[in-house]
C-alpha cells in the first residue's frame, strides 16, 4: 500500500493549513533595546549612581594625601595611593583626650552590640512564640501594649531612663546601654517573631502537644529550627540598628565607653586644627563596614526571611 504514502505526501502539498503555519511560531523574539528596557535600565542605572557616587568619592578621598585633596578634584582617582589616613583613623586620630583612634570605639561597639543582639532576640523570640501559640489570658492586651511601645518617640523616654539607670547603678556603663537597646528592640522584634510563629501551621503545635512536649521543648525542638530565616532577619535588624545608634550611645555612656558612632562624630566634627578629609572619610567607611558586611553576607537570607514573615500576619 505505497499509495497511502504518496497520497499523504500529495495531501501535505495541498494542505490548506500549511501557509498559515508559516506565520509566527514558537517563542516571541525580544529586542534588547526596546523602549521598555531603556526605561527600566536607565532608571536602575540612575538610582544606582545616586547611591554609588558618594561611596566612590569617599573611597578615593580616603586614599589621597592632604596635598592632593587641596587641589579640589573630588572625583579624580588618587594619583598616589596612600593608606596613611586609614591607619590614622583606626589607631591614632584624637577624640578629646584619647588619641587611639576608632579602635577603642570599635571594641566598645562590639561589646555593646553582641550582648544586646543576643539578649533582645532571645527574649523577643520567646515572647513571640508565647503570643502566637500559647494564647494565654490577656495575650492580646499584652501584645497591644507592646506594639504601642513601638510608636512612642524615644526622646520621651530618655530622661526617665537616665534616672532609672542611675538608680540601679548602671548609668554610663556598657551594660546600661545593652539593657536600653534590648528594651527598645523588644516591640518590633516581638511583632516579627509573633507573625512568623503565627504562620506555622497550628496543627504542628497541636501534634507536638499530643506528643507530650511542653512549652520549652516545643520552642527549642520544633519551633526554633523552623524559624531560622526570621532569626537571620532579627539579627540583621538588631546588628545594624544597634551598631548605627548614636543617640543612646552619646547619652548613656561616658567618653571611655563611647561606641564607634559617637567617636566617629567626635573625629569628624572636631573644630580644632586642619580638617583632614581623608581621615574623616576613612573613619566613616570603617564605621559603616560592619553593617555593610552583614548585608553582603546575609542579603539573600534577609529577603527570604522578610517574605516568609510577611505572608501571614
Amino acid at each position: 500500500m505505497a499509495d497511502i504514502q504518496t497520497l499523504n505526501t500529495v495531501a501535505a502539498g495541498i494542505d490548506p493549513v500549511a501557509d498559515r503555519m508559516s506565520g509566527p511560531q514558537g517563542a516571541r523574539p525580544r529586542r534588547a533595546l526596546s523602549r521598555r528596557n531603556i526605561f527600566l535600565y536607565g532608571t536602575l542605572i540612575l538610582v544606582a549612581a545616586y547611591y554609588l557616587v558618594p561611596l566612590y568619592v569617599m573611597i578615593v578621598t580616603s586614599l589621597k594625601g592632604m596635598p592632593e585633596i587641596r587641589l579640589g578634584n573630588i572625583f579624580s582617582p588618587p594619583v598616589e595611593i596612600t593608606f596613611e589616613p586609614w591607619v590614622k583613623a583606626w589607631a591614632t586620630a584624637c577624640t578629646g583626650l584619647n588619641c587611639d583612634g576608632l579602635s577603642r570605639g570599635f571594641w566598645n561597639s562590639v561589646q555593646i552590640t553582641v550582648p544586646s543582639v543576643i539578649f533582645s532576640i532571645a527574649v523577643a523570640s520567646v515572647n513571640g512564640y508565647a503570643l502566637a501559640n500559647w494564647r494565654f489570658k490577656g495575650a492580646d492586651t499584652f501584645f497591644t501594649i507592646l506594639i504601642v511601645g513601638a510608636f512612642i518617640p524615644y526622646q520621651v523616654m530618655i530622661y526617665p531612663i537616665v534616672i532609672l539607670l542611675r538608680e540601679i547603678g548602671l548609668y554610663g556603663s556598657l551594660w546600661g546601654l545593652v539593657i536600653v537597646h534590648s528594651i527598645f528592640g523588644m516591640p518590633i522584634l516581638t511583632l516579627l517573631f509573633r507573625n512568623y510563629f503565627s504562620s506555622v501551621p497550628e496543627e504542628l503545635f497541636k501534634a507536638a502537644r499530643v506528643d507530650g512536649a511542653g512549652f520549652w521543648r516545643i520552642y527549642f525542638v520544633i519551633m526554633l529550627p523552623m524559624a531560622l530565616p526570621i532569626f537571620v532577619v532579627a539579627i540583621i535588624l538588631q546588628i545594624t540598628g544597634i551598631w548605627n545608634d548614636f543617640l543612646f550611645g552619646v547619652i548613656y555612656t561616658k567618653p571611655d565607653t563611647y561606641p564607634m558612632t559617637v567617636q566617629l562624630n567626635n573625629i569628624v566634627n572636631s573644630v580644632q586644627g586642619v580638617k583632614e578629609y581623608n581621615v574623616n572619610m576613612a573613619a566613616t567607611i570603617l564605621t559603616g563596614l560592619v553593617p555593610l558586611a552583614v548585608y553582603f553576607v546575609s542579603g539573600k537570607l534577609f529577603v527570604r526571611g522578610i517574605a516568609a514573615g510577611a505572608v501571614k500576619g
Partner: protein
Amino acid sequence: MTSVSIRDLSLKFGALEVLKSLSIDIEDGEFLVLLGPSGCGKSTLLNCIAGLLDISGGQIFIKGRNVTWEEPKDRGIGMVFQSYALYPQMTVKGNLSFGLKTAKVPKDEIARRIARAAEVLQIEPLLERKPAQLSGGQRQRVAIGRALVRDVDVFLFDEPLSNLDAKLRAELRVEIKRLHHRLKNTMIYVTHDQIEALTLADRIAIMRNGIIQQLASPYEIYNRPVNLYVAGFMGSPGMNFLEGEFAPHGAAELSFGATKVPLDRYPFVSDERPSRVIFGIRPEHVTCGPASASEPFSTEVEIEVVEPMGADTLVWAILDGKEFRFRVDGQSEMREGDRVRIGFDPARASIFDAATELRL
C-alpha cells in the same frame, strides 16, 4: 465496654455555643465517624476529646478514666491531622520517636516500636528521609505511624485524607480500614466526605451546628434517616423531596398534586399524621423502564437533562412540576425530551413531617 464516653459536653467561645450538651458512648474497638459540613463542630469535638481545647461543661472518659482535665499526652490518645503536621526538620524516624523521647521511653523500646509501626505501615525504606522528600500519601502514613508508636487506646483522625487526590484517598481509605481490623483500637474519625464515612464507620454521627442529628450504623443512616437534614445530607446525588399530604380517609395513601402513592408497605415509626409531609426517595431506589411495572408505584415522566457519569447515568426529569432525579445503568440509552416510565417501592422511601422535619 465503653472506650470513650462523652457526657453533656458543651463548649462556648464567648457567647457562641459551638457544642451543645453532647453525649456519646463509643464501644471498645469501634470505628466512629463524625460527619458533617464544615463548621458543624466535628473537628472541635475531636479537639476536645484530644484535650487540645478546654471544654466549658461536661465530662470526658477514656477507658473508664475521667480525663476531663488531663493534658493531651496523658489521655491515651494518638492523633492524625489533615495537614499531616510532621515536624519538617526531623527525619521520619525523628518524627516517630519525638513523642517517645519526650516521654523518656527507653531507647531499645523506642526502636522496637518504630520497627513495628514501620512494618505495619510499610514505611521502612523511608525512615531516614525528611518529610519534604515524601509524597502526600507517604506523609500521611508517617503521621498515622506517629500515633501508632504511642501505643494508645484511642486513635483520633482529623480529616486525614482531605489533602490527598481522589485516587490516593481511595487507596488510603482501604488501608485505614485494614489497619483498624488489624489493631482493633477505638478510632474516632472526622470527615466531611460521606463516602469515607459510609465505607469506614461502624457507626456514623451526623453533626449540625454542634448537635448530633443521628448516631447509627451507615445502613441505618442511609436507609432510615431520622430527619430531613440527615436525609438531604447523605447520598450524592441527594434524595428527591416531594411535598405532599396524606389521603383524608386514612394513612394508606399519600398524594402530591395529582399523583397518589400507596403507603401500605411503608414502615411508620410514628403515629403522627400531620397535614403536610415531605416524601423522600433516593435516585438509586427508582427503577426505570419495563421493570418499573412491578413496583407498587409507577408513573410516566419527561426527561429534562441526562448526565452520564460512566458507571451510571443520572437523569433529571419533571414529576408533578418538580425536579426529580433518578439513576439508571450507564449503558442505557436516554435522551432529553423522551418520556419514560419510572417506579419505586414506597417502603424504601422516607417520609418526614414538614413542620418538625422528623421521620414519620
